[in-house]
């Protein structure tokens, strides 16, 4: 509670330009794995030894905490754009209560995206540009397709936040990330229940295991930024360069 009304700290110039501390968890996936499905990432989720080419072209997300905030901002932009489309195009295939849920989620994601833009600017850094979504692969008039993409985005978002927490250095940002990720988890649980009742936390499912879940220990997914962006890349026209983000 003590965090909630505090202004986020200024990002110092040193933090802005600081190189990543360690490459020990380095997992650049873009080259070899770009375009691979999320499931395809499972074999890499806990493996430090994949010799892959890092993404070092495209829009630089930046380094340090601001880089992580921009990374989260990118994902929230994507989710916000997706649900905006769902609300605009999928009403005819959704039940009334489902559409009401989608409208709520669209607003939550919009709030998250706008929050990050404001918070990054307030920290004295430049927010990531507006991204251009590419939803050409999604049939918005197909309920199952829409819900499955929603599930992918929500579960991926959770894995992204869970994997990025340890990369943050500022406590206030970690707390904020925690405030958002549990709402994404609430979304994910609902979407999963709409697709298949009772699947709200199916940690043993192939899709969640592909995001790093561990059913034996009751753990949700967690992925590195490179893994997440590799999976999300097909929905974003711009190429995002995560090579300067902290790696541990």
């Amino acid at each position: 509670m003590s965090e909630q009304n505090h202004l986020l700290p200024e990002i110092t110039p040193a933090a802005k330009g600081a190189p990543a501390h360690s490459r020990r968890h380095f997992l650049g996936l873009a080259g070899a794995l770009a375009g691979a499905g999320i499931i395809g990432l499972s074999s890499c989720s806990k493996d430090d030894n994949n010799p892959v080419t890092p993404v070092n072209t495209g829009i630089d997300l930046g380094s340090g905490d601001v880089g992580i905030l921009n990374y989260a901002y990118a994902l929230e932009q994507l989710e916000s754009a997706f649900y905006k489309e769902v609300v605009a195009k999928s009403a005819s295939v959704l039940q009334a209560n489902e559409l009401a849920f989608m409208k709520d989620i669209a607003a939550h994601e919009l709030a998250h995206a706008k929050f990050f833009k404001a918070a990054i600017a307030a920290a004295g850094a430049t927010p990531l540009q507006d991204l251009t979504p590419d939803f050409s692969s999604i049939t918005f008039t197909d309920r199952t397709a829409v819900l499955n993409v929603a599930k992918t985005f929500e579960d991926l978002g959770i894995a992204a936040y869970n994997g990025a927490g340890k990369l943050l250095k500022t406590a206030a940002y970690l707390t904020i990330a925690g405030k958002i990720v549990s709402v994404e988890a609430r979304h994910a649980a609902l979407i999963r229940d709409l697709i298949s009742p009772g699947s709200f936390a199916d940690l043993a499912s192939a899709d969640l295991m592909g995001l790093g879940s561990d059913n034996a220990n009751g753990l949700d997914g967690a992925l590195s930024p490179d893994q997440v962006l590799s999976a999300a890349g097909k929905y974003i026209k711009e190429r995002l360069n995560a090579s300067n983000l902290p790696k541990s």
Partner: protein
Amino acid sequence: MNLQNIFNHIESEDPEFYERTSPRRLAIRTFMKGAALTALPVALGGLLKKAYGQTSTDPIAILNFALTLEYLEAEFYQKAVGNASAVGLTGAALGAYTTIRDHEAAHVKFLTATITKLAGASQVAPKPNFDFSGGVGSASGTGNGPFKTVFTNYDVLLAVSQTFEDTGVRAYKGQAANIMDDKYNDVLQAALQIHSVEARHAAHIRYMRANRGGSVVDGNPKPWITQDKSNIQTGNNDANAAIQRTYAGENATNQAGVDIASFVSADLATESFDEPLDKDAVLAIVKPFIITP
């Protein structure tokens, strides 16, 4: 004994001292260089308390705090499933409770193993005895609290489940920033991975309640929390008050200086961000359910 000797002594007694104090060696060096002499006793006390006291930033203490909550949840769901026929848990609902029970039991096992690995088995907090009526310390007494029908009344079971899950989410969220240390990156990540599972549970229980309706369901519970509403009406003022503590402060619309209500409605702004609770607030919520220690 001069100050350097004190530090040397600490290091010889406890080689990990510098590692356990955060932010570690640099802090000690800075402390040695920068501290004004008059401030030394106080500053030194703080430094030692950080290493040895039961402060909220001791990772083992935090893990044991989490373990206590998981003990509570694991036993609660074990009893719910064990009393399935008495309480009316059947079909999909029983399936969901079984899933959640298994996750909570897994969390207990995982946290126990983690604490054992970091600090030894002797540092694992023992499982307390629980009173799921919530009567510990109340006038009505242990076993006779405001939730005494929890394993015979399905609506009360759902209400208590929702409250425990939403409390768990807030508890993990409140501790995450206390384990920010590269040494504990794995612990932090696992805590976050548990945190989001608890949020999934909370969302499902809330959805179950919305679909069920009935007099204990107040208004329209959504999978997410609107304002600071529990959406629970037990008909018992003590029970309602106990539940409401879990939702205190969830109505925040200002996040790190950003007015979220300037982007979306105030209700949606509160739903978009879940709020943390500190350890004391969480303990106050669960205390009526914990008989020992």
